[in-house]
C-alpha cells in the first residue's frame, strides 16, 4: 500500500504529477472558459519562472478562483430590516515547497488570498494571481525552513507523508446561479416575522414575544481550479436557507426560543409560503407552550431517551463526524489523526447494528437534492463512496490529499471552505441500521422501558447546535407526553453512541447545512438507554423592565 518509494522525489525535481496520467470527467473542452485560460497561462508562467536563485522551486502550485454570490434578507416584527447582495471573486493560491514526503504545509493549511476582478478582466486576474503567488511562495519558503528545523527536534519521523500525488482531472460543470424571487421572499419574511401579532392563533400571547425574525440566505459559488497536476475544474454549488426565530421569557425569567428553517439546493426546494407561515405559527405556539411548561425535575435523571431523526443527526454531527475526518496529527507525535477515533481503526465505535457511509456521489435522497453531493473534491480528486463504519467497526477515515498512517491515498474528501485550504471533510453521511424499527415499534420499546423501570422517560424532538434540548418531552409509562423546559443532557458522548444505543428507527431524517461547507447527514431515530437529563443552572434573566409598545389593533 505504501507509496513512499514513489514519493521519494528529490526536492529540486518538481512537477512529477502530470506523469501520472489524466482523467477527463466531462466532454466540454476546458479551454473554452476565459477565466480558466487566464489561470492556466499564469500558472504556466509561474511554474517555469518562480524561483529565488539558490532556493527551492515549488513542487506543486494550485490556483482556485471563487466566484461568490450572496443574497440575504432579514425581517423583524413584520418589517424588513436588512437586505444585502454581494458578488465577489477571490483567488487563492497554494504553493508547496519540498516534496510529498515532507513539504512546507502546516496542519492549518497554507496559501494566499487576493481579490479578483468581478468583470472577468484577464489582465487584472493574472495580476491578482501573480501577486498571491509571490506571497504564497515566500511564505512557503519560510514555512519549509521553520518546519524542517522543528522536525529535527523529534526522534521519530512523522507517521505519514505530507501530500499524496493525484492524477490530472478535467471537470467542467454548468455554472451555479443564484435564482430567487427576491420580492416574493421579502414579502414572505415580512409576513412570517409579523405573524406573532397578526395571526389569530398567537395574538393572545403576542405581548410575550420579545423577538420575532425571519431571514433568508442564498449563496451560489462557482469554483475554478487549475494546478500543476494538470487538473482543470469548474464546479460549484448553490444553497438556500430560511430561518425563523422567535422567543422571549417564561414568568421566572428563563429565556426560551424556537428557531428552525429549511435548507435546499434551490430556492424552490425551500418550504412554500404557506408551510413557512404554518411552521412559524407552530414555533410561536410551542414557544408559548414552553413558557408554561414545567421546568425539568431538579434531581438528575439517568435513563432512556428517544432521539428524533433531527436530534440524532445533531448528535452524529457533533460527536461522530468530526472524528472520522482525518486531520493531521501534531508534529512529533505518533498518532494517526486528531480526535477521539485516532486509534480506533477496526475497533467498535458504534453498536454492531449500525453502519455509516459517506457517499457524496448520491445526489438526491427520497426526492430531496443533497447539498453535500459532489463529483470531484477541491483538491482535484474524484470522490468515491466510503464505508466508514461497518457493523459498528471503524473501517475507514475520510481522507483528502493529506494522508494519515495506514491511509496513504485520498478518497476524495479534501474539501475547502470559502477562501480556505482544503481539509478532510464529510459530504453525505448516512447512518443506517441493519435492524430498523418502525416509529411505532420504537415508541413501544421506549414505553416498555418506562414500564419495566416504573418511571417516566424522555423523548427529544429538537436540539440546538450544542446538543441542548429545545423541545423535550417527559413521557409517562402510559404514553402521555409533557413538554418540559430548562434541561440539558449530560453523558451524551462517544461512549453513549458506542454502547448506549439500544435501537434505531427506519425513517431517515435529512439534515442539511449550507454553512461553512455544504454537508448532509441522514440519520434515523435513536433510542439511547442511559442519558442524563439535568436541570440547567443558568442565571435567570430579568423580565423586561417595561412592557413593549401596545400592538396595533388589527
Amino acid at each position, binding site marked *: 500500500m505504501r507509496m513512499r518509494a514513489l514519493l521519494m522525489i528529490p526536492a529540486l525535481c518538481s512537477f512529477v504529477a502530470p506523469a501520472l496520467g489524466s482523467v477527463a470527467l466531462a466532454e466540454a473542452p476546458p479551454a473554452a472558459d476565459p477565466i480558466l485560460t487566464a489561470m492556466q497561462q499564469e500558472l504556466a*508562467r509561474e511554474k517555469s519562472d518562480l524561483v529565488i536563485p539558490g532556493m527551492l522551486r515549488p513542487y506543486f502550485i494550485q490556483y482556485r478562483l471563487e466566484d461568490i454570490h*450572496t443574497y*440575504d434578507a432579514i425581517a423583524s416584527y413584520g*418589517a424588513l430590516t*436588512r437586505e444585502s447582495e454581494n*458578488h465577489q471573486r477571490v483567488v487563492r493560491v497554494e504553493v508547496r515547497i519540498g516534496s510529498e514526503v515532507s513539504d512546507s504545509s502546516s496542519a492549518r493549511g497554507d496559501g494566499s488570498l487576493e481579490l479578483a476582478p468581478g468583470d472577468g*478582466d484577464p489582465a487584472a486576474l493574472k495580476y491578482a494571481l501573480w501577486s498571491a503567488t509571490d506571497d504564497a511562495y515566500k511564505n512557503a519558503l519560510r514555512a519549509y525552513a521553520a518546519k524542517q528545523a522543528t522536525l529535527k527536534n523529534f526522534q521519530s519521523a512523522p507517521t505519514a507523508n505530507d501530500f499524496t500525488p493525484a492524477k490530472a482531472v478535467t471537470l467542467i460543470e454548468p455554472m451555479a446561479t443564484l435564482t430567487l424571487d427576491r420580492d416574493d421572499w421579502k414579502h414572505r419574511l415580512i409576513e412570517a416575522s409579523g405573524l406573532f401579532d397578526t395571526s389569530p392563533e398567537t395574538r393572545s400571547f403576542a405581548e410575550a414575544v420579545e423577538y420575532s425574525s425571519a431571514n433568508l440566505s442564498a449563496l451560489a459559488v462557482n469554483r475554478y481550479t487549475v494546478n500543476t497536476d494538470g487538473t482543470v475544474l469548474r464546479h460549484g454549488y448553490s444553497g438556500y436557507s430560511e430561518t425563523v426565530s422567535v422567543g422571549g421569557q417564561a414568568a421566572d425569567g428563563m429565556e426560551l426560543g424556537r428557531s428552525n428553517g429549511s435548507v435546499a439546493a434551490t430556492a424552490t426546494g425551500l418550504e412554500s409560503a404557506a408551510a413557512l407561515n404554518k411552521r412559524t405559527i407552530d414555533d410561536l405556539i410551542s414557544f408559548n407552550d414552553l413558557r408554561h411548561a414545567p421546568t425539568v425535575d431538579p434531581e438528575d435523571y439517568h435513563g432512556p431517551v428517544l432521539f428524533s431523526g433531527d436530534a440524532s443527526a445533531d448528535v452524529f454531527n457533533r460527536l461522530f463526524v468530526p472524528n472520522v475526518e482525518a486531520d493531521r496529527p501534531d508534529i512529533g507525535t505518533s498518532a494517526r489523526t486528531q480526535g477521539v477515533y485516532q486509534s480506533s481503526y477496526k475497533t467498535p465505535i458504534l453498536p454492531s447494528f449500525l453502519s455509516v457511509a459517506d457517499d457524496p456521489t448520491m445526489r438526491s435522497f427520497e426526492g430531496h437534492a443533497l447539498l453535500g453531493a459532489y463529483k470531484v473534491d477541491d483538491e482535484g480528486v474524484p470522490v468515491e463512496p466510503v464505508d466508514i463504519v461497518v457493523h459498528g467497526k471503524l473501517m475507514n477515515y475520510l481522507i483528502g490529499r493529506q494522508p494519515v498512517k495506514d491511509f496513504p491515498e485520498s478518497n476524495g474528501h479534501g474539501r475547502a471552505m470559502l477562501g480556505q485550504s482544503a481539509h478532510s471533510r464529510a459530504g453525505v453521511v448516512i447512518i443506517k441500521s441493519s435492524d430498523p424499527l418502525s416509529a411505532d415499534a420504537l415508541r413501544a420499546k421506549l414505553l416498555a422501558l418506562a414500564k419495566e423501570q416504573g418511571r417516566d422517560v424522555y423523548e427529544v424532538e429538537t436540539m440546538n447546535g450544542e446538543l441542548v434540548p429545545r423541545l423535550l418531552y417527559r413521557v409517562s409509562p402510559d404514553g402521555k407526553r409533557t413538554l418540559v423546559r430548562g434541561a440539558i443532557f449530560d453523558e451524551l458522548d462517544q461512549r453513549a453512541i458506542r454502547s448506549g444505543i439500544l435501537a434505531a428507527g427506519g425513517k431517515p431524517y435529512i439534515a442539511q447545512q449550507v454553512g461553512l461547507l455544504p454537508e448532509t447527514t441522514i440519520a434515523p431515530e435513536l433510542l439511547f438507554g442511559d442519558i442524563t437529563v439535568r436541570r440547567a443552572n443558568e442565571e435567570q434573566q430579568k423580565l423586561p423592565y417595561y412592557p413593549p*409598545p401596545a*400592538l*396595533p389593533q388589527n
Partner: protein
Amino acid sequence: MTYTFPEAGPSLISPDSYRSAVSRFDFHQKLFWHVLIVSLCGPALAVVPTAVAQDVGSAQSAAVASSMQQPLLMDAMGTELQRALTELGSAATPVASSSEKVLAQKPYFISYTVADAESVTITSQYGAIMNSNESHERTADVQVRLGTPAEDNTHGAHRSSALTTMALPLADDRAAIERTLWYATNRGYGKALDALEKVKTEQQVRAREEDSSPDFTEERPQVDILAKESPLSVDRSAWESRLREISGVFRQYPNIFYDTAVLQATHETDYFVSSDGTKVEAPNHVARLIVAARTRASDGMDMFRDETFEADSAGHLPDQTEVMAKTQAMAKGLNDLRTAPITEPYNGPAILSGRAAAVFFHEVLGHRLEGQRQRGDEEGETFTKLLGKPILPEFLSVADDPTLTNYNGYPLSGHYLFDNEGQPAQRVQLVKDGVLQTFLMSRLPIAGFANSNGHGRAEIGKMPTGRQGNLIVTSAKTVSDAKLRQMLKEAARKQGKTYGLYFEDISSGFAVTTRRSPQAFQVIPLVVYRVYVDGRPDELVRGVSIVGTPQAALRSIVATDDQPEIFNGLCGAESGTIPVSAVAPAMLVSQIETQRQAQGTSRPPIVPPPPLDDVASASGSPKGGR
C-alpha cells in the same frame, strides 16, 4: 492601555495604507470575511432583531423608504422615547427574601439616534472592477443614562454601557420601529443598571480622582428639522468605466505591485431625539474618490501614495481629466521614490508643505485637544495644565470650525450641522495668538469646562467623544513660498548643514496620547526632498521618519507661507471613523529630528508582472514598457 489611531487620511478608507504590506492581506481577508458573514451567519443574526448591519449590498427597497413619509420615523422615535421615560423605573419591584419593594432607577437621560444611509461603493484595481455595491441601512443608537449627571453609568471605563445599537426597519413601519426601539432600550437599561452598580462600587474603593467633573453636561434643547436629502443617485456604469481607466494607469508601472481606485458616495439623514427636548433631523452627504498605490524598493522598503478627491456628491467630484492627471503624477512620483536614495539621520530645519502641516496639526495638536483626553486615569493630558499658556508661536492661531462647508471654494469633509449628541456645530477657537484657549468638547465635562461646544462626534454604534471637524491653522507671519525656501536654506547654512528638508506629503501614523507611553507622535512622511544650500537641484529621499515630542515641534515653527492647503480624510479613534479636514499653510520649522524608518524585509515580487500582450486592455493603457 495604548490607543492607536489609524489616522487622518484616505489611508483609512483605502484598503492599503501606511501600514506594512500585511495590511493589504488583512483587507482582503476582512472583505472576504465580510462576504462570509453575509452569507453564512444568517441564522445567528436572526436570533435577536439583528445586530448592526455591516455589509454593503444592494437594496432593491432602498430608495423607496427614505424620502417619503419621514415624519413617521421621527414621530415614532419621540413617542417611544417618551413611553420609555414614563414607564422605566416607575414600577416597584419586589426584593428577594424580603417583603419590601424598592423603586427601580429611573433613567435621567435617554436619546435615540437613527442614521438612515444610502451608499454606493465601487472598487477597482489594475483596470478592472473588483466590487460594485449599493446599500441602504437604518441603524439606531439608543443611549440610556442612570444615576445623576454628576455620576452615572458611563463613568470612567464604563462609557459604552450607555449605548445599544440595533438595525431598524428600512420602511416606515411604526409598530416594528417602536418595538425595535423598545427591545434596544430594554436591553440598554439592563446594561446601564449593571454598569451603575459597578461604578458605585469602584468609586467607593478608589482614590479620589484628579478631575472630579460630572459625567454629563447640561445643555439647552435644540429643535431643528432641516431639509431632506435627495435620494442618492450615482451613475454606476459610468463610474465603473472611469475607475477602470483610473486604476488602469498602473498597468504602465510594473514596479507598483498594488493599486486601487475606490468611489464611495453616501447620502445619510441623521435623526436625533433626546429626553432633554432636543429633536434634530439633518442631512449629511459626501462623495469621495480615493486612488492609492504601493511599491517596494529592492531593499524591502514599502512606499505608499494616495490621492483623495472630495465633494458633496459624486457628480461634483473633479472631472476625469483632472483625476487622470493627478493619478499619473502620483504613479510616476511613487515609481521615482522606489529608486530614491535612503535618508540619513537628520536634525535641522525643514519645511512642511501645507498639506503636510495640516496632517501634522491634526495629529500632533488636534487629537491632544480632545476634551476627554484631559481626564481619566489613562490619559496623557499633554495640554491639560497649559490652558491660558502659549503652546505655539504667537503668530499662529488654530480653530476648529465644522460650520464651514468649504475653504476658498474647496469642499471640506469635516463639515456638519449638528454633532452626534444633537448639539449644533460651533466654531471653536482652540489657540489664539499661540495661547491655548479651550478644548474640543462633547457632553463629557472636564475641569473648567461644563458644556459641549458641538464636537461630540462618533460613528454609528460608538459613544461620541470630543473630535475634530475642520481644523484650521492661520498665521499672522506669512511669506511667499520662494521666501520660505530661502529662509530654509539660510537656517540650514547657519546650522552647518548642506541641506534642509522639504516634506511635501505626510501620512499620519498614530498618535499615542496615553500616560504610559512617551508623548511621541508618529506621522509618516511619504515624499521628502533635500533642499541643498549650494543651489543643487532638490533631491528626493525615501525612508524618512520624524521623531520628537509634540510641544517641541510645535514651538519651533518659525514662519509660514501664504497659501493654505486642505487635507480631507477620515479619522479613526475610540468613537469610530469620521470624516475630517485640516487646513494649514506651509511652515518652516527650525528644528526637526528625523531617522530612517523601520521597514519590511520582503523582497519585491520575484517574477515580473504578467505580460499584457495577450489581453485587450480595458482602459486602453499603453502596453509598452514590459
